């Protein structure tokens, strides 16, 4: 392992400290496939996210990124190892967590405002208050005129904004995002990234952001996790010391940014190639 004197400092992995916001400690997760075999999705996986930290996870397709997020939510349980959120072992779906899904997960039969108000309503907030907060959040993501629209009447970028408002309205202390912007065009994505960083710095939440786009990861993160091809484990961790606040449209021309991205890409490339050749061989 070599030490990097520049902005991308490669960190050594240690057992997570007790006060971390998210601690995944030496976790292995195996799925039972429909034909009764065991299939390892992630192995010996260790990851720590401090309070208020923005962590990005990159890795080849199928390496277990979504699985990792599901471990943190409690939707999946580790086969071995432990997952702790806010110091407590994950036993149930925690109220501290917000999740922006890879797929479109809005409720198509609810209008924008009903979608955004869903979280508070589920959690027993009085109706009037829930809608007032929903209106506020819709305004913040710039969709004030679209309250009464149904999701199918919105563009892809607008739907993603609704999803952000729907998640942020619960004021999650832990924010998990699974390739939230991968389906968007360049301009919209840049705008959404800026919005996300703005909301994050307001809320001081701890973020795990999964992406297959390394530049996106470097631009957003305090810390980038590079995973190996499946079964995934952490290959290396980089600390990104680019100054904040960052402006997404400009940061990609920053020489320091380019340099960091290049270093991490060298690391990631092998895994991507490995993942691709495996996908071709096994067909999944």
């Amino acid at each position: 392992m070599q030490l990097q004197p520049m902005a991308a400092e490669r960190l050594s992995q240690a057992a997570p400290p007790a006060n971390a916001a998210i601690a995944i400690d030496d976790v292995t997760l195996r799925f039972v496939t429909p034909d009764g075999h065991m299939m390892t999705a992630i192995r010996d996986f260790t990851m720590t996210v401090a309070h208020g930290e923005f962590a990005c996870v990159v890795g080849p397709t199928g390496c277990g990124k979504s699985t990792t997020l599901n471990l943190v939510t409690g939707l999946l349980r580790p086969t071995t190892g432990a997952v702790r959120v806010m110091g407590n072992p994950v036993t149930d779906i925690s109220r501290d967590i917000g999740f922006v899904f890879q797929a479109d997960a809005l409720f198509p039969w609810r209008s924008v405002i009903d979608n955004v108000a869903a979280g508070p309503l589920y959690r027993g907030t009085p109706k009037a208050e829930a809608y007032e907060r929903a209106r506020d959040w819709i305004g913040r993501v710039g969709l004030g005129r679209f309250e009464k629209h149904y999701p199918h009447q919105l563009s892809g970028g607008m739907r993603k904004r609704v999803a952000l408002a729907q998640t942020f309205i619960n004021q999650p202390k832990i924010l998990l995002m699974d390739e939230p912007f991968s389906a968007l065009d360049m301009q919209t994505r840049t705008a959404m990234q800026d919005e996300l960083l703005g909301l994050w710095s307001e809320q001081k939440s701890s973020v795990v952001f999964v992406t297959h786009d390394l530049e996106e990861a470097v631009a957003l993160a305090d810390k980038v996790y590079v995973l190996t091809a499946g079964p995934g484990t952490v290959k290396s961790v980089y600390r990104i010391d680019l100054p904040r606040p960052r402006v997404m449209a400009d940061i990609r021309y920053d020489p320091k940014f380019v340099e960091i991205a290049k270093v991490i890409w060298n690391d990631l490339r092998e895994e991507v190639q490995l993942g691709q050749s495996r996908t071709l061989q096994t067909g999944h």
Partner: protein
Amino acid sequence: MTAISPTADHAAVRDASIAIAESRARARLRHRHAMVIGLRLAILIVFLGLWELGADYNFIDPFFFASPSGIWQQIWSWITEGTSQGPLWLQIYVTLEETFLGFVIGALGGIAAGIILGRNRLLADVFSIYIKIANSVPRVVLGSVFIIALGLGMASKVALAVVMVFFVVFANAFQGVREADRAMIANAQILGASPFQITTSVIIPSAMSWILASLHVSFGFALVGAVVGEFLGAKQGMGLLISTAQGAFNANGVFAAMIILAVMALVVEFIITRFENYLVKWRPAPFNEQGA
């Protein structure tokens, strides 16, 4: 670099030509619509005319195959003089009442069973075999069983209608629950929904289009159940009217009752469609209806 923008002149000319094209397109649409309706009417008139002429000149034996004028006379005499078993509206009312009761009970039962089994893997695996068996029994035969068990009154017809409706609605509700999007369910869970809230706010709405589709078909089934039940043994109803007409070799009577049943089914179908459009107003219009 220079930006190119169209001049005001160009814009005005373009707008005018668009307006002309639009009005032409609208005229074409109106014309086509009128033509479709005209052709439909023409086909109906030719069909009834040929039937009537064929009956008059004895190409078609009106004793077996009735005739449009005979059918009309039959309906008219039922309306004005009543049927052999009482006023016509009473027969319609009895059959509709049985159909509705059977439809509502069968549909609610089917929806409830579909949701419960759809949400519970173990129950679904255990019961699926029995449902398959029950579903493969020709249900109309059960009509005889119900008449023996429940008598000639309304109960036996309602029971047959319930059985006809239940399985169709159940199968669709079950499928609809199973198809509910997993990401959407996970989303609701993380937003804080309890299992009950997930059922009411995610599972049922997403199964709704499946359920509504089955309601269309199953109303027809409920009507068949009620009519067949009456056919097998009853004191009132359209089915009895048919079986009486059949017993008297009155082909006009059979056709007349059939037409009345068809009108009843169409009216209810129209109401269900209205109800459906109201319930699923969140759904995008199919492409061919957009802008029409």
